[in-house]
């Protein structure tokens, strides 16, 4: 088990180091997220009364679309370099490749969220305690990376991959978006996350565990195809 986790982390580390050198995926995601927030800020008339209701939804829409760009790029780069075959050739369980990719993608998306949140808070004049907000952010982001990584691997070899990925991911991701937005709204309203959003957090956790397990079992077949 230790060897399995070590190899998964090794793959994630390789992705992070490649990204640190090229800044290809992070740059695209961060710029897209910042631009989206700016556009929302100018396009929507967010009055002080409704901003707490709108803010969580706007935030998650921004994260999801920025995340989709990043997920697409992470596999397109592997495919263009032909390096995915190099990973498949190694004596590594293919679910460890998936786990490594999920770790890498989760960290990419979380780092974009960390850059985007302060600007979002300033432009929309909202604030939230960091600790409680981190819970729905982390659970939602993990769920997004879990689903997105599988579908990015499926869509990368198709000609319509840029279009196909959101079409495949978004319908399945709807329950996570709803739960993450509701739980985040509780935090923005400065109410108790555990008392008022326990069921939403439960839904997020269940989704993450269920789809992560399914993806671990199916990823070998996904890579094979």
């Amino acid at each position, binding site marked *: 088990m230790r060897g399995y986790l070590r190899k998964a982390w090794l793959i994630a580390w*390789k992705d992070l180091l490649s990204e640190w050198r090229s800044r290809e995926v992070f740059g695209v995601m961060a710029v897209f997220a910042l631009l989206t927030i700016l556009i929302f800020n100018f396009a929507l008339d967010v009055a002080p009364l409704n901003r707490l209701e709108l803010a969580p939804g706007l935030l998650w829409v921004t994260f999801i679309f920025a995340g989709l760009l990043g997920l697409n790029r992470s596999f397109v780069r592997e495919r263009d*370099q032909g390096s995915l*075959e190099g*990973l*498949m050739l190694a*004596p590594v369980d293919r679910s460890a490749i998936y786990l490594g990719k999920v770790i890498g993608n989760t960290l990419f998306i979380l780092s974009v969220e960390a850059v985007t949140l302060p600007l979002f808070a300033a432009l929309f004049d909202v604030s939230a305690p960091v600790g409680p907000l981190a819970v729905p952010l982390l659970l939602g982001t993990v769920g997004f990376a879990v689903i997105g990584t599988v579908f990015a691997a499926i869509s990368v070899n198709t000609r319509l991959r840029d279009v196909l990925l959101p079409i495949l991911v978004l319908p399945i991701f709807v329950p996570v978006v709803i739960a993450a937005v509701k739980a985040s709204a509780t935090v923005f309203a400065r109410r108790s996350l555990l008392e008022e959003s326990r069921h939403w957090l439960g839904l997020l956790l269940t989704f993450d565990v269920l789809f992560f397990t399914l993806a671990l079992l199916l990823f070998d077949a996904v890579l094979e195809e």
Partner: protein
Amino acid sequence: MTPTPLIEVRNLHKTFGLRPALRGVSLSVAKGEWLTLFGPNGAGKTTLINVLATLTRPTRGEVRLQGHPLTSDWTDARRYIGLVGHRSFLYPDLTAAENLHFFARLYDVSAPEKRVRALAETVGLAERLQDPVRTFSRGMVQRLTIARALLHDPLILLLDEPYTGLDAAASEWLSDLLADMVRQGRTILMATHNLEHGLAFCHRAVILRRGRLVFEARRDDLSPDEWRAVYRQHVGEQR
């Protein structure tokens, strides 16, 4: 008693959609043997190598490694196989050393530092270990690819057009390196279009055409002129 072949392929079929790439290929390779695979474009050479490398599962047929069938779990078999394919499998934004260390750890190579340094010297890239791969020439990438394939000291080396991108001196170096490996007991299966490179050190050669094995002979059974004639007949003019 005949020793068990290291690689044994029986009635191998591989179909992509409706298009058959391999149609009942059977062959065996003994330990320490160098088998060259000739064939025109689309003959199924790369597909056969990919099946042996466990990158693609066959549609039908059987592959045995040291007498053991390769079934659903190929993970351990991959420790015995090194592949130099059409792509380098390297990460251009990482340095040569980072690439080699990454693969060394994936393959659980013991004393990876020492192994990486030794292989970098073998392929003549010791001075460039700290440079990003994207700054390398095509020939240097190919040398690093060969080092990557040899990192875990594989029993079987699968080579798909390994001379691509190498100049005359580097080609000679690669031939010598491969001949050395065979002398050390390694087994080589190499696909190439190049008759001269393919026959230089091999023990046996086969010709694949439209997914079928159409010719097989020991290298020394035919004279160079006879090989050229056979090659022309089944593959076409030497380019």
